[in-house]
């Protein structure tokens, strides 16, 4: 009877998380803990709720509590890895990721996170390897296919990128982050119309997400050919290593000093001009 009541409270808390009612979910999870203060499952659930609430320190603290009781608690490790990643504490992320992968080697999301962290560092080939490992575990995950499509575009294989794009969208056309990656892939392939279409769909699905909003507004900026032309060199530079960027700026400055100044000025004017036009189009004469 007690077990049944506990089970139903646990399910209610999980259900509330699904509904994004995190405060109510915390109350339910707290009830679980008051029934059994040593309940590692409840602690891991509380950690997960704090993760959703973007309270990463609290999430990490609760995973510590859960892991102190059950050292190989899979959900606690999952939340811990995600919290460190979101907090951008990369040293702790890598350490906990290695341990989490040892405990649950078939969790494909770990490989995805690994790929995302490697992409941030510009290690595209290594990131691709990680994603392929994730897809080996879950071959039909549209998000992974979308990220792989983006990586292929960055690595210069536009055809493969487009093929993966079609495959991802066939599985799911309503995944905000997946659509964002597909938009980036389309942008990297030079397909600005598709970039805008994907970003419009993504922002419709998740309009409250600031990153997706910003990316949508940027995709609208790419409508203007002057902006595309002037932002081209910048994009090229982003693919280079820091020392290569420094060297190319130095050489450009030495060779074409006045031209570099004109280019920078033009870029700044175009960037802000197109930003203003996009703002007017999306928000009208009101503040964001």
């Amino acid at each position: 009877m007690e077990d049944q009541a506990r089970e139903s409270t646990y399910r209610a808390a999980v259900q509330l998380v699904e509904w994004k009612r995190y405060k109510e979910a915390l109350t339910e999870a707290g009830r679980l803990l008051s029934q059994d203060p040593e309940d590692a499952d409840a602690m891991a659930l509380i950690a997960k709720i704090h993760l959703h609430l973007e309270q990463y320190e609290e999430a990490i603290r609760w995973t510590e509590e859960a892991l102190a009781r059950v050292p190989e608690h899979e959900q606690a490790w999952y939340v811990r890895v995600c919290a460190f990643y979101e907090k951008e504490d990369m040293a702790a992320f890598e350490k906990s990721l290695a341990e989490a992968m040892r405990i649950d080697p078939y969790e494909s999301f770990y490989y995805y996170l690994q790929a995302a962290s490697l992409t941030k560092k510009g290690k595209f080939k290594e990131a691709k390897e990680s994603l392929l490992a994730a897809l080996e575990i879950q071959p039909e995950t549209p998000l992974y296919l979308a990220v792989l499509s983006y990586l292929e575009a960055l690595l210069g294989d536009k055809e493969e990128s487009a093929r993966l794009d079609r495959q991802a969208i066939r599985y799911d056309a309503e995944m905000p982050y997946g659509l964002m990656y597909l938009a980036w892939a389309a942008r990297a392939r030079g397909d600005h119309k598709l970039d805008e279409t994907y970003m419009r769909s993504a922002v419709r699905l998740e309009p409250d997400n600031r990153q997706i909003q910003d990316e949508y507004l940027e995709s609208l900026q790419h409508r203007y050919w002057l902006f595309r032309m002037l932002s081209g060199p910048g994009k090229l530079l982003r693919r280079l290593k820091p020392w290569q960027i420094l060297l190319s700026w130095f050489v450009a400055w030495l060779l074409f000093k006045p031209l570099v100044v004109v280019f920078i000025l033009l870029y700044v004017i175009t960037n802000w001009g197109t930003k203003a036009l996009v703002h007017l189009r999306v928000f009208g004469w009101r503040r964001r």
Partner: protein
Amino acid sequence: MSDQDELAAQRRKNMKLIQFSKDDQTLVESDKPKETFADVAGLEEVKKKIRMNFILPLQNPQLFAAYGKEAGGSLLLFGPPGCGKTFLARAVAGEIEANFLHIELQAILSMYAGQSEHNLHDIFQKARESKPCVIFIDELDAMGGSRHQMRQHHDRMLVNQLLLELDGLQAENENVFVIGATNTPWYLDSALRRPGRFNHLVFVPPPEETERERILELKLAGKPADGLNLAKIASETRLFSGADLEQVVKDAVESAMERMLASGQLEPITNDDLRNSAKSRKATTLEWFATAKNYATFSDVNRDYQIVLDYAKMHGVK
């Protein structure tokens, strides 16, 4: 009292409030609350819209039929939390003199958890047996969330069942009305918004200045107070919800009680207590408006939430 008034009073007396009991997971009856629109402070525009679209067509179906308007349908109240959606729904039930079946979050949760023998069909069946009846589904987004985002088959089944019941209401039942309320209408399954289901969408905004003054007056009624300028406090609590104002009064009461404990004699609530309390709080509706504006700007293909943008612009909500 005329015969008609007496009859109405008698009917009202017999009305029941049917609610879900969390303790034994059953539907229980209690005396119906007596609220009517007269008890709802302000919200004149909202009340007018509800009267036009919901109540008057029920009272004068022939008259409205002449204009091609049908009686009934369902009503969806949306807006920031704590602004009186539940109270308004109860008042609607009072206005049309119907039983009131209130489904809250806990009842919905129990349906998901599967621990109760009551399911959605039973609840609607109970309403059909108790007609005229208003079914009020609070936190409708919990029951009627977008099926696309649901992982569990069971969750999708519940939305399907809700759609079936709503369609059934139109086809088979008269005098059973459904009012839904939600803070997050954008999470609702789009099928719920089709004609014949929740086709009247009503925005319940935070109280206006005069309404805030009235709410403060009601919350302070019977409490010791001295030289209060409630109009001034009301003007300084722009966008505060009814629940926020209740908290302001609670904080002010605590301040007065602290003084009482120090002085040992009854200390009245002063204007400064209220002002300090109001200053220390931020309107909780602001967070809601930030989210609603995002949905209205980026996701509102049918322009359902244009009213929110207009309201935000008119009231300078940033």
